[in-house]
């Protein structure tokens, strides 16, 4: 069909761009994946929703597995679908219970029958206790294994079709629109909270270029006057760009070398920083050099504040510098002309990412609120369902 071809073309183009690193900004990646997923959902029947998301999700994440924002958005979609399906099952089972409870009163053996019925219905989910539908989720939900949910089409059509007042697809599409709006307004939502972080005539230290931090400073500077010190982050030197843009907003900035961080840290009031990704244990996978900042801030007892959007939340657990890292070309550090004079024994190391453990971070700021690093796993739970933590192949 024509729709299929167009979708495939769009997906291929996007995959190609990501592979060639034409799109490096994680926000842009997230926005574009969400558009593609929307297209997929609109041109798909309800039966095949989950399958298609899995299929395209695999394609998109394999373009660049380290670009975790793509995977995060795919997880968002699949979690929306799975949650909807789970709730429908819960309602179905509840209604079934009502029908059967009349029988139970006669037989006076409620529990066994339930279990027997559950065993018989292998296809159905081993769902959480059916009585409280609006119970807040606990760790057990997070840790219990759940099999995949595929409703047989017969059930859907015949017995309980009258239960589905709204179709799955329309609900899913509505929620997708909500997520898209959330993506759009990440910068605004975060910068609104900025005024709780900064007081007047403060000196704030940042690292490199981050659009979220820029927007926050822009918003707060209308209310309060402060000063910013920017550390050029080598080897990308994005700090220069940040300093330029800040000075265009008439915020007094000073640009320093990365090596001067410790000497200036005692004169600074707080450290505000953006990251690439936030991991499930509350740690960061960020631009190289941010760990130095974090350790220095800890030693000087300064608050180390990290701003992130929901698309940066990824459910992996790093424990090491190497687990989510990649090496870049040594050209960025060392001139090729000088490299000729070196022997074979010499190595030049240029990693891209830096791991910051959660003990060094004082505060995370999200679209909704500020969080402790120990709370990040709960946010993960809200956004992603349990079976999507590892995208199944």
């Amino acid at each position, binding site marked *: 069909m024509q729709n299929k071809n167009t979708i495939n073309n769009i997906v291929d183009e996007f995959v190609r761009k990501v592979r060639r690193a034409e799109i490096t900004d994680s926000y842009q990646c997230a926005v574009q994946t969400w558009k593609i997923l929307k297209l997929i959902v609109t041109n798909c029947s309800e039966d095949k929703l989950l399958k298609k998301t899995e299929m395209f999700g695999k394609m998109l994440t394999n373009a660049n597995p380290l670009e975790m924002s793509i995977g995060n958005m795919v997880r968002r979609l699949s979690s929306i679908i799975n949650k909807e399906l789970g709730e429908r099952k819960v309602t179905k089972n509840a209604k079934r219970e009502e029908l059967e409870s009349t029988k139970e009163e006669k037989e006076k053996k409620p529990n066994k029958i339930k279990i027997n019925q559950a065993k018989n219905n292998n296809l159905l989910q081993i769902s959480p206790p059916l009585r409280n539908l609006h119970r807040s989720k606990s760790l057990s939900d997070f840790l219990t294994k759940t099999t995949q949910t595929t409703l047989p089409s017969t059930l859907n059509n015949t017995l309980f079709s009258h239960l589905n007042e709204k179709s799955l697809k329309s609900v899913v599409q509505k929620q997708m629109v909500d997520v898209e709006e959330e993506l759009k307004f990440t910068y605004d939502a975060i910068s609104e909270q900025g005024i709780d972080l900064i007081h007047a005539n403060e000196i704030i230290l940042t690292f490199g270029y981050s659009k979220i931090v820029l927007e926050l400073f822009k918003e707060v500077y209308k209310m309060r*006057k402060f000063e910013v010190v920017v550390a050029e982050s080598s*080897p990308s*030197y994005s700090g220069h760009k940040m300093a330029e843009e800040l000075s265009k907003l008439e915020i007094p900035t000073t640009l320093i*070398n990365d090596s001067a961080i410790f000497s200036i840290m005692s004169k600074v009031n707080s450290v505000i920083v953006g990251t690439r990704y936030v991991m499930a244990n509350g740690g960061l996978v960020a631009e190289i050099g941010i760990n130095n900042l974090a350790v220095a801030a800890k030693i000087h007892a300064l608050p180390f504040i990290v701003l992130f959007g929901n698309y940066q939340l990824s459910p992996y657990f790093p424990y090491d510098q190497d687990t989510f*890292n990649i090496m870049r070309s040594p050209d960025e550090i060392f001139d090729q002309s000088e490299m000729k004079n070196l022997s074979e*024994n010499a190595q030049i*190391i240029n990693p891209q990412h*830096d791991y910051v453990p959660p003990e060094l971070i004082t505060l995370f700021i999200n679209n909704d609120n500020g969080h402790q690093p120990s709370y990040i796993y709960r946010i993960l739970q809200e956004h992603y369902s349990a079976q999507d933590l590892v995208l199944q192949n």
Partner: protein
Amino acid sequence: MSHQQNKQTKTKTTEQKKSIPEHLQGMNKEERRQYYQNLHSKKGKPQKKPQKQKQQKKTETNKGGSNVPEHLKGMTKEERRKYYQKQRELSGGQQQKQQKQQKQQKNKKVQKKQAQKPKKMTKEERKKYYEQLNKQKQEQKKNWNQNYQQGKQKGQKSQDNKQKQKTQTKQKETQKKQPKTNKTQQLSDPRTRTLTSITSHISPFQQPTTKESGVEFSESVIHPLTIELSLKFSSGKIGGTTGRCIALLNLLKILIREVTVRARFSEDVVKMLNRNLDYLIKHRRFSYTMFSVIRTVKEWVSRVDSLEVKEAKIKICSQIDEFLRKHIYDAEEEITEIAWKKIKPGDVILVYANSRVIEKILKKAHQNEISFRVVVVDSRPMNEGKKLLKKLDNYGIKCSFCELNAISYIIKEVTKVFIGVAVILSNGSAVGRIGTAIVAMIAKRSRVPVIVCCPSFKLSKKVQLDSLVSNEHGDPKKVLTTKNSKSVKIQNLPSDMDVICLLWDVTPIKFISLVITEYGLLPPTSMQVLIREFKDF
């Protein structure tokens, strides 16, 4: 004079009677006079007032007013008229001459010209005249400064007033334009911004030039070797602390050898040294060790007055040689002897930037066939690690290279950290190249020992808790020039953006595990003991 005025008055009176304007015809003379006085006062012509008043007064009184000469006061008008008619008949053409002369006298310009014409004077009169002129000139010179400053103050005041007016108008305009907010604060002036104001006590960076003022080829001569050294310092060809000390000591030797002593030895030598060192310091600020070296050499010079010039020179040069040998060359050798034994096979040693001592240590360890490898860490703005990398690579040592930002990535492989230092303070903390504090901090966090190697002449009685109290500014261009072509250029720096380039760094004592000097291995807490007991100078 008088008869001319009388003529004018006569003509005016006749004209006045004929040409009274219509709006004044009803008034008397007195009323008209008052009217005209008011007019003239408004227009601001005070000079003409008294003359006109006097002329009007004359018309009233027949007996002479103030302008009538004395010999004619007793006479009436008619008598005066007859007197003047007689005189006119007597003198025919002379009236015109008289009139001309009187007119000329009135003109001030002509008077000046007449004054400027050289009068015929005798020699004595001319002498007196020129003496008076000289006196006047000298007085003018003395008063010139006062007048100039007074004029300056006046000018500044007027400028300040103008600026104040301008800023007030601008503020009013900006206040009108700004949207009304609940809390409005004044924008911080970029000049009083806190970080730059904190570092304002540090002397700013000086561009290396040969057009330095003070090179006057007259009495005060600067030795050509100082000029050579100054260029080497400012361009960075001779960079490290010990390197600069050695170069400075060699220069002092040559200067003292070639000095021409006229009066006392010590005075002349000190003057010569001050001249040359003042020139040197303009190009790059001296480090603490260099100051202490200069102080000791001057002390030696002051103690040598009793000897003859030749002997004194020989003595001081030998003292300088001994200093170099004892405190620098021999000390470095002893440190290498002690320190290379600390490197065990299988070690991975991290080194930051460039240091003579550490290069020697690693070379010696490699020569003694210990299998180890080295990680060289480098940072901006000085990029000294690349030099060390090349040297070590030439010796055949296995090296890896990374930037300061990647140190937390690579520290997990490292077993020991060796650091070179500029100064060790008496509270045990070390002043080194900027970035050493970060290296030590991350090493401490990963429980890797930090070993500082320095000869004892780098110990000082100074105390410093902060990196900003005494530091050095580097070239801000070094911060701004990057491999990216899109970075800001210093000519186009926006007004709200500042660039700070610091060169030195204080690593606190808690990050340092061990200090190796020529006297042995010591903890950083006993630096003060070393200074007290062992330091010669």
